[in-house]
């Protein structure tokens, strides 16, 4: 019985609702029209005002190099959205430079300050290394030494060759970067890199919550993203500010020299002394890691001669601790 009544009630209810809706609709149309009309009139007046020349003329250089002249009144600062700006400038780099790094193995005592600075700048886990210091021993009778190993920023990078989507790319000023908004997570680049320089975000990155409102900066690779690659960037964000990379500045022992091959000058991160890049390599027999692979690294090493510190095996200590 009840069920029979129900449809009728519904019908009634619907009628009411409909008339209520109609009323609201009509009112809102009128109100909306009034507001829009007022706004149009106001805008029109304002537009007429704005047509008045201020008298001051400005010369501006357009993006294509053309010189333009406009009234000063019309000039407003153009804004690329930050997200696009970061990607655009990050992919273009800093024209006119060729960044290089020189690592003096004689000075490294495995203090691991470079690693700490890097991991905190890039929001990494303790086992995720953009730069790692390895304890090397080539053969039975050769002496062991500590070797900081960042990405070698190869001029012929195997990782870039194999990337299927142009997520990792080589910049004109030297660094090899990774765009984690493009990366599909195939990890072909990890397989291809002979220096084991690349790291994958196997899980949600440690600071995902804190970073979720940040705009992605490809030169810092923050926020990190689950399921994508992260790697050493030569601190491209610091280079843009005219500063030395995080690891270079953090070293207490003067291991790192960083600079511009075009200027033939490198600066020590600890002493801030600047020397000629070519002299530094020449006087200290600088070399590259595995140049026989044809990768053309941008990181150079000075051999561990006349070491400042005795070698302690960091791995054994780690195992004990």
């Amino acid at each position: 019985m009840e069920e029979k009544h129900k449809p009728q009630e519904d019908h009634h209810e619907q009628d009411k609702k409909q008339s209520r809706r109609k009323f609201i609709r009509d009112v809102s149309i009128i109100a909306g029209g009034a507001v829009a009309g007022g706004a149009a009139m106001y805008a029109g007046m304002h537009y007429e005002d704005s047509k008045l020349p201020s008298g001051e003329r400005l010369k501006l250089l357009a993006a294509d190099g053309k010189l333009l002249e406009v009234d000063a009144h019309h000039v407003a600062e153009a804004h690329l959205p930050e997200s696009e700006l970061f990607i655009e400038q990050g992919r273009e780099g800093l024209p006119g430079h060729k960044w290089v790094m020189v690592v003096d193995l004689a000075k490294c005592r495995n203090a691991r300050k470079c690693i700490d600075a890097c991991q905190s700048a890039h929001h990494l886990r303790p086992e995720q290394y953009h730069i790692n210091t390895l304890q090397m021993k080539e053969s039975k009778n050769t002496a062991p030494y500590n070797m900081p190993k960042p990405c070698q920023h190869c001029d012929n990078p195997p990782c870039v060759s194999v990337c299927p989507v142009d997520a990792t790319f080589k910049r004109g000023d030297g660094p090899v970067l990774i765009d984690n908004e493009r990366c599909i997570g195939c990890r072909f680049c990890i397989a291809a890199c002979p220096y084991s320089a690349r790291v994958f975000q196997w899980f949600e990155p440690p600071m995902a919550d804190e970073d979720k409102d940040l705009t992605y900066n490809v030169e810092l690779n923050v926020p990190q993203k689950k399921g994508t690659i992260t790697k050493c960037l030569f601190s491209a964000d610091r280079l843009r500010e005219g500063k030395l990379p995080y690891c270079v500045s953090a070293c207490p022992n003067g291991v790192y020299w960083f600079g511009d091959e075009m200027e033939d000058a490198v600066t020590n991160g600890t002493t801030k002394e600047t020397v000629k890049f070519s002299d530094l390599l020449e006087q200290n027999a600088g070399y590259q890691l595995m140049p026989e692979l044809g990768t053309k690294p941008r990181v150079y090493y000075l051999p561990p001669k006349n070491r400042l510190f005795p070698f302690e095996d960091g791995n054994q200590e780690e195992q004990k601790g």
Partner: protein
Amino acid sequence: MQNSYDQVASDLFRPVRVNKGHIIWMGFLTVALFLCLYAYSIQLRTGLGVAGIRDYVSWGMYIANFVFFVASSLIGMLMSAVLGLIGMKWIRPLTRIAEIIALAFAAVAGLVIISDMGRPERLPYLFLHGRIQSPILWDVTVVTTYVLISALLLYLPLIPDLAIGKKILTKPKFLVKVYEILSVKWRGTSAQWEIIHRSMRILLILIIPVALAIHTVTSWLFASTPRVGWNSTIFGPYFVSGAFVAGIASVIIAMYFFRKNYKLEKYITEMHFDNMARLLVLVSLVYLYFNINEFLVPGYKLEQGDAIHLQDIFVGHNAALFWFAQLFGIIIPIVLLLFKQMRKPFPMLILAILIFFASWIKRYIIVVPTQEHPFLPIQHVPSSFLIYKPTLIETAITIASFLLVLIIITVLSKLFPVIPVWEMQEEAELKEKGGQP
């Protein structure tokens, strides 16, 4: 003559019906598949880290499985195209089985590779931002092409059978309708035969370079890197010859079960097993030859990286898997199949199952150990980074891919006759003509 004609058709269409056993089998496969897909949903939520892969061994079971699937799919090309084009008549009842296996493995290979992606939702980027320099793009292109050609090679010779089937089959109704539509008004006129023969010939020739390309390019995913153990110039032919071994094992297993379950002893005879055994020995010998090259030459020189790699797989912690793969995947089958008793169906089934497992493990041995010893030492990382240990979740996801292959094979072999009917009819006709000259 009319009699043997009908006999063939009714024999071969007999299995095309749904019975209890089939429903139970499909039910089992489906339930198992959903269980395994649950594992994938965990991976999607938590990240690829639920698998045992880490920063050094970053390609594990999924990639090994992908290589295995691409390898197994090559059998379609070997059976139909290579043997067919040189005029081997005995393969005729086996071509459709080989083609179904090829299609199933090739199609699922594409899904396997997606399960290895950190960001599967970005798959379209391959087309939007694809870089032709990357071997992954080549692989995507040729695998897709291979799936398409394999599907056509399965479908075209099926058309005359569909026309026969729509007359013979009475139920289920929907299947008769499917036959009706798919048989595209086939009446068997000489013009129609001409079209089928010509297009088949074109496809059979076309599929040879495409099949070679899919596995060669797959091998280049490794050989195009400077890593020890992958940095090899013979990886292409090494992979292709190994693929034939794995594929023949799959076909032998399928032959055995179809013959027994579908009562096809008259069509898949001991002669077929004997011939498949000989074919298996031939491709195994070729594969053995490439193995000798792949391991003996670097083993003689013992460059530092090669020495570490070879020590690991010959006597190190990967040795048990390596020797299992080499012995059961190549050497033991070659020796045993010299004996006639071993070329009978049942011993062949046992051997084929062993080869199938060994072939899978061989892909694992090709993919994993190389990454466990990179050029620079692995230090200051958790011990789980040093040696790859597959997890339960990635094992389940890998099993899902096999279940999917089994489902595809089961469905196709239930919907359509697994042996080409018109070809068998032709043979029966020839036999009768020969019988009464």
